[in-house]
């Protein structure tokens, strides 16, 4: 039922709320109040996961030369962040090998061509020298592309499970990635199972484990804000729902505006009577802004929750990638 109400309100708003601002016709009074000098105090920027590039690179025909001859040169280019040169190098005609697939996938990953990078990482067998690195980068590529289930499927495949059933150098890294993906997929039981393997003792993983634990605690606690509470709060005290949503400036601006319009309506009522056009006009404006604030408060909590989840998901994806740079240095 609450979901149905939410959908109806969204349809009434005519457009889906984007980050930061309440949109649609119903949101107009809210936007007027929020754009005041006091209201703008609440403005903020939400970090987002970079958008994947779905275009594909066409690689040339295989040649005779072995890429391992240029492996050091490739690392020199990569370490110095000469991305164009690294890309040009792996676009050359080389003999097929796991190394070639791995290096090409690395370049594609940097270029955010995640689907193609994932394919190439997936071609490298786990037992080859670049196998483990390719495997975990494939998981990160799929995760960055939003394919959480596919990425989790890789980590929970029987071959990987059996490989790490008795621990080993990558057991905790696997647990970290699986835990991160459980958070992204909203699976609390999986999260609890995987995060129980966190030791916080490995320097390459400790920071990421700490960040994910914090996010996990927030995400699965019942402390998240409810849009209905914000709407109710604004119905009782105009602007209170905005304050509840974490937008103090907008709350104060709404309180002052609606309070002023209420006072104007009251004065006109007392001086000119309830049926006078001035009372009706002021009252209508007051009601419009009052309802707009209730709607705006409701949507603000939805937007805040959405922004928080976006920021957390960005942090999770970042912390799935971060340890790989140290582990496979």
């Amino acid at each position, binding site marked *: 039922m609450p979901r149905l109400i939410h959908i109806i309100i969204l349809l009434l708003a005519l457009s889906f709320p984007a980050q930061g601002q309440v949109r649609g016709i119903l949101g107009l009074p809210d936007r*007027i109040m929020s*754009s*005041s*000098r006091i209201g703008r105090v609440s403005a903020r920027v939400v970090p987002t996961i970079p958008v994947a590039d779905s275009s594909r690179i066409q690689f040339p025909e295989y040649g005779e030369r072995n890429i391992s001859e240029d492996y050091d*040169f490739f690392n*020199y*280019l990569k370490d110095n962040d*000469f991305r*164009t*040169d690294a890309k*040009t*190098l792996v676009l050359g005609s080389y003999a097929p090998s796991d190394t070639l697939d791995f290096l090409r996938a690395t370049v594609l990953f940097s270029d955010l061509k995640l689907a193609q990078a994932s394919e190439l990482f997936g071609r490298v067998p786990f037992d080859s020298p670049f196998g483990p690195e390719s495997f975990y980068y494939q998981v990160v590529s799929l995760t960055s592309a939003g394919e959480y289930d596919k990425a989790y499927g890789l980590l929970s495949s029987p071959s990987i499970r059996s490989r790490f059933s008795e621990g080993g150098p990558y057991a905790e890294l696997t647990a970290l990635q699986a835990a991160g993906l459980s958070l992204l997929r909203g699976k609390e039981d999986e999260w609890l199972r995987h995060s129980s393997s966190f030791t916080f003792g490995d320097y390459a993983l400790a920071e990421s484990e700490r960040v994910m634990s914090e996010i996990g605690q927030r995400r699965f606690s019942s402390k998240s804000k409810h849009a209905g509470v914000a709407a109710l709060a604004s119905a009782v005290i105009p602007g209170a729902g905005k304050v509840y949503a974490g937008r103090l400036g907008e709350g104060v601006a709404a309180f002052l*505006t609606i309070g*002023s*319009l209420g*006072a*104007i309506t*009251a*004065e*006109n009522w007392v*001086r000119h009577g309830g049926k006078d056009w*001035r009372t009706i006009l*002021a009252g209508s404006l007051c009601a419009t802004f009052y309802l707009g604030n209730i709607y705006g408060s409701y949507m603000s909590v939805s937007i805040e929750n959405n922004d928080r989840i976006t920021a957390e998901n960005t942090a999770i994806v970042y912390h799935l990638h971060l340890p790989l740079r140290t582990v496979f240095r």
Partner: protein
Amino acid sequence: MSIICIFLFVPFSVKGQEVDRDDPLEEALRWERVVYSSDDPVVVQDALVSKAACLARSGSYGEALRTLDRIRMYLLSPEDASEILMLKSLYSKKLGDYGAALGFLEESGSAENHPALYSVLLAASRRFAESHEQALRSVSSQSEKAAVESLFKKVPRIKKEGTAAALSFIPPAGQIYLGRPWDGLLSMLLNVGAAGFTAFEIIGHDWVTGLLGGGLLLNETFLKGNISKNIASVEDANELSVKRFSESLEELLKPGLNPGNPN
């Protein structure tokens, strides 16, 4: 012969390898390989210049500039250093960073030798008097000089935020100052309406309506719609007028530009 000429136009082979002239990125990679494998600082410097030229040919001016930044300028002769700075200036201009382009050009010490380019960069940096002087130096015929004079009669006047803010207290003076008279007229009508409403209500002893309602209205029309909006648009107005003027000047001085074609 300067380094630019040597490395932009002459060598297209590295260590005996024939280089595909059609693919500047592959060529750039070959030069990078020279940098990677050579211990001779002179060879490295030369390879970096060549690589930058290849990257510029591919349109990657940002990367070309970063490649030139890797050159150890203290190892170069003053003439070569000047040529490198000149290239940096051209690449920066291509990237639209006119301030940096002017800085490199002036640092190169050869700005006076390229008056057309210097004039355009000075104009984009709002140094119109110097730009005017250089523009006149860059043209030779009387008709061209007359065209330059005619253009510099329309030098944009740089608007000041303080003046715009002060004039905004008398709508529509602020908008007229910023070159938007119709916006000014609309703003004046809205503000007169809001002020009239406030005065009317106060005279009629509707104090709350007059003070609070008038306050809300004037906040929208006067503070937000007039003063704040005018102050916020000063820099945009300046940038637009300077951009238009610089483009006109660049068009006029086109034959004298391009001292060392970065492509």
